[in-house]
């Protein structure tokens, strides 16, 4: 549950709109009037199919995309007008670990830490500590990233984010495409971050179980719209039609009229048509 609500919220998004224009095509509305808040220490999940706008939302928060309308405040600071200030407070792990593939984990982490103003002397002991904390064998710290499994790369991406002590952590499908064991390992690291660190977290995922297990509140996003957001139990009660509480899958079906898989396929087909 949220640790505190004193002071500004970790994240406050109001009326965010974003459309993309493709040549000789109608603009695609990627985000439609998004309102979202995350309290300090809270973990909020966004469930949605491929192409629903989750990644665009994360890119807007991480200052990589400028919205057409709306406001984004991170710990009370306007991210659109003071991007450098909010960039210091947050970090992100995306679906594909973004590393220099020929560089080692240690070299990539040293580089990442310097972008956030940490010297090698400050970063080195923390790199060792964090990598050991996620169960990484230090004798592999000098190996090129391309030699490591995807699951291990994602764990190192989480380590890189932790290295900068982010107050807001953006996790954009960090377990998508991982084998079941790697997925569990990465989820365990996220669970550990949530338990031990005071970071507020936005977790975008396809995985209902992951959302239910890790998140205080869960939002459902379809076609660029956040159509519902509540605790898992709150969502289940809201969409309850019989004597028993529905599953999160049932909730998604009731809210969107489709399953997550079907919605993903529809979005992918739409993307193919407009590509």
């Amino acid at each position: 549950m949220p640790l505190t609500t004193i002071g500004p919220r970790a994240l406050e998004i109001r009326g965010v709109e974003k459309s993309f224009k493709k040549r000789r095509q109608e603009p695609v509305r990627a985000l439609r009037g998004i309102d979202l808040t995350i309290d300090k220490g809270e973990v909020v999940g966004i469930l949605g199919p491929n192409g629903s706008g989750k990644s665009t939302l994360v890119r807007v928060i991480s200052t990589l995309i400028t919205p057409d309308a709306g406001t984004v405040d991170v710990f009370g600071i306007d991210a659109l007008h003071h991007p450098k200030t909010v960039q210091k407070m947050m970090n992100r792990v995306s679906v594909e670990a973004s590393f220099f593939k020929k560089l080692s984990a240690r070299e990539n982490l040293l580089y990442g830490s310097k972008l956030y103003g940490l010297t090698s002397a400050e970063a080195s002991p923390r790199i060792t500590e964090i990598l050991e904390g996620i169960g990484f064998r230090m004798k592999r710290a000098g190996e090129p990233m391309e030699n490591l499994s995807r699951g291990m790369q994602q764990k190192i991406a989480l380590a890189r984010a932790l290295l900068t002590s982010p107050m807001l952590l953006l996790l954009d499908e960090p377990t998508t495409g991982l084998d079941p064991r790697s997925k569990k390992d990465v989820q365990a690291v996220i669970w550990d971050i949530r338990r031990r660190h005071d970071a507020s977290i936005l977790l975008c995922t396809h995985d209902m179980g992951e959302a239910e297990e890790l998140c205080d509140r869960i939002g459902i996003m379809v076609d660029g719209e956040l159509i519902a957001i509540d605790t898992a139990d709150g969502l289940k009660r809201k969409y309850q039609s019989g004597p028993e509480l529905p599953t999160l899958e049932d909730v998604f079906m009731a809210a969107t009229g489709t399953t997550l898989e079907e919605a993903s396929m529809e979005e992918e087909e739409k993307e193919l048509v407009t590509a």
Partner: protein
Amino acid sequence: MSELAHAPRAERPRWLLELIAAWGFAQRNFFLTKRYFLWEVVWLAYATVSAMSIGFIGVDVDRGGVDGARLTTFLLIGSILWGYLSMIFDLLSETVSWERWEGTIEYTFMSPASRATQLLGTSIYAIAYGVARTALIFGIVSLFFDMDLSNANYFSALVILVLCSISLVGLGMVAAVMPLLSPEKGQQVSSIFTAVLLLVSGVYYSVSVLPGWMQAIAKFSPITYALEGMRAALLDGATLNETWPSIWPLLIMGAILVPGGLLIFRAGERYAKRTGLLKRSG
């Protein structure tokens, strides 16, 4: 790991944070050079052999009664300086496409390090690496050729080298924006630009032999002035005063191109953020 939650955040003045980040970019490129060491050896060998093959043209002409040593030196200065300047230009202009190819562009662009810092860090490494590589090539080539450096004014040559490095950094910054605006075609445009610079700047011949319209283009290339100044300094021992016709255009170009390049790059970044072009795949 629990104490990490309370690890002190880097509360440092902005300039120091940017300095650390600039060093981070330079160090990252050094790490990459180490990792691609065999390729570095290949490129060094290629550049050396390329310079030597040009140098032998001068040796060949020597048999015909022309001052071969002077022509050889003229050609080698062109070849070696072009190798150095084009490498600085390429490293800067590939700043974005390299990150996009590696998939790190979003991570780098969402960090608090500014683009000026990124380009500064990349420039520092490009110049340091370029000077070391060029010195090595020069050393190897001088073993094979009798270069006419008896009158050389090395101080003037150094000043020209510094000034043309700054101009090329600025030009590279301008070119770096292309892959930002067009992920698919941006780098190709930069390559065409490099080819035009090679053609018009008088790398292997005097600019005066070019058609009039090419000479007009050459006036806008900092490499033209760098080569004229460097040749005057190394072949004729020209003093700073004597190389002033080459120095002042380089000063003006550096003063315009570096801040202009930064402004253009920032404008390109704003456009990319508005249109969603800051993606790894493009």
